[in-house]
């Protein structure tokens, strides 16, 4: 299968109140180009789902949004990514505070080998967000409450985070992410290692978090994309094929490739 030449993204890749703006983004791993000329807005307080077959570049694109790809030596990024109209790849940008503003939740829950309390307190401590112990305790409690985990762990904050169930660990990671008060949360298949009940809890949480945060979620589950997002972006072989309101994408997609993917006609 080859790349579509001169492809313009179908639908509505731009929105009225963008939090993040990607313009003409290309990603290269050495000589190999993984993402081609992607322009996309991620609106404030919206959940956008990035879907597409394996290797289509959706995770690579997501990782560009908080410069996680910087950790890969051979990775080179072209184009612009603007957070509140500020280029996040500008030389003056320090990635540490950037990643506090644009947090990330990974596929597999990755709690630190520390207590539940310290897992959540880690970010606020290293970013110097607190001066007193009671402030830290307040942030930890509030973050755990927002992540829907407080009632389950409030009596064992000193227990190791790794001792929690998979779903609880993932909510702990979400609590850790929101403890530093980010503006955007990137989620890379956050439920793929979880059972349906834990998945439902995380999805409920995503819906609640939308009031305060902007969320971009990569998912292989089209039902999940349909449930949690307001807009859906379909990637194919490194190109952004279509972006539209989620209900439209799943009932009447505009592009034949989107239709073929979501109806299971190729994978």
């Amino acid at each position, binding site marked *: 299968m080859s790349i579509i030449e001169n492809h313009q993204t179908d639908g509505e890749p731009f929105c009225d109140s963008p939090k993040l703006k990607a313009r003409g983004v290309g990603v290269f791993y050495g000589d190999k180009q993984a993402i081609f000329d992607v322009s996309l807005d991620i609106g404030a307080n919206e959940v956008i789902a990035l879907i597409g077959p394996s290797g289509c570049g959706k995770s690579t694109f997501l990782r560009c949004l908080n410069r996680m790809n910087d950790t890969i030596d051979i990775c080179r990024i072209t184009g612009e990514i603007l957070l509140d109209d500020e280029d996040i790849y500008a030389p003056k940008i320090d990635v540490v505070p950037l990643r506090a503003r644009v947090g990330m939740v990974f596929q597999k829950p990755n709690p630190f080998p520390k207590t539940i309390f310290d897992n959540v307190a880690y970010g606020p401590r290293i970013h110097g967000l607190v001066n007193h112990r009671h402030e830290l305790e307040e942030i930890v409690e509030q973050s755990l409450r927002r992540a829907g985990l407080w009632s389950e762990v409030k009596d064992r904050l000193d227990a190791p985070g790794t001792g929690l169930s998979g779903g609880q660990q993932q909510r702990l990671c979400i609590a850790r992410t929101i403890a530093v008060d980010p503006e955007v949360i990137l989620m890379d298949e956050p439920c793929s290692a979880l059972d349906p009940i834990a998945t439902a809890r995380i999805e409920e949480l995503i819906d609640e978090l939308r009031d305060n945060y902007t969320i971009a979620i990569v998912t292989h589950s089209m039902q999940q994309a349909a449930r949690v997002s307001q807009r859906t972006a379909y990637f194919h072989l490194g190109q952004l094929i279509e972006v539209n309101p989620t209900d439209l994408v799943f009932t*009447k997609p505009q592009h034949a490739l989107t239709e*073929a993917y979501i109806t299971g*006609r190729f994978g």
Partner: protein
Amino acid sequence: MANKGIPVEMNFSQHISGQFNSDLEAIRSQMMEMGGLVERQVANAIEAITTGDTTPADDIIRREDDVDRMEVAIDQECTQILVRRQPAASDLRMVLAVSRVVRDLERIGDEATKIAVHALEVSGSTNGGYCQQSIRYMGTEVGKMISGALNAFARNDVDGALDVVRNDKLVDQQYSAALRELITYMMEDPRSISQAINILWILRAIERIGDHARNISEQVIYVVSGADVRHSSISEMEERAHKDKDDSSSTGA
């Protein structure tokens, strides 16, 4: 499906799951089979009323249960596909449309049965001949509408579906004319009222069959273009069906 901009070696006609293909094909073909049966029911009902021969009427009443059973069976299969496959886009529209169409077909079957029952009541009556011309005309038209709607469904033919919708307007006009004729009979001779009411029910049933055929055509437009044109006027329907179809074909979907 147009392939603008898409590498030619890609073929989207089949699902990765062969079973999904055959499940979708199965509900489609069973719906067509049910449609064929219902179409015959209507033709027989019109024949019974216009010829006075009640043999087809008995047959229709006997077969009503078959139509009901088919509706339930196809609808159950649609539910199974929704549960097992979680279809999206054109597949979802197809399953929803089949489920809606079989309900309309079942109601057409009910109307054919009503016509058959009234045909038995008016048979042998001296006044059974009211509005025969209208019944014949409307009966033929709705028969054509049912087959037109089913053919349009089979061929994904939006224009064919729109023709059916236009015909429904003609049937409605003929129905109004026939009602005026019946009222005249009833005013002139009150003894004719009970028979005229039988004829009225028959006309009403035929008119309703036209409405159901129109509903089926609306589903064809929904499957092909994605536009939900229920409760729209003909001009709105034409505009939306073609607009959405053009939108889709311009990008190949």
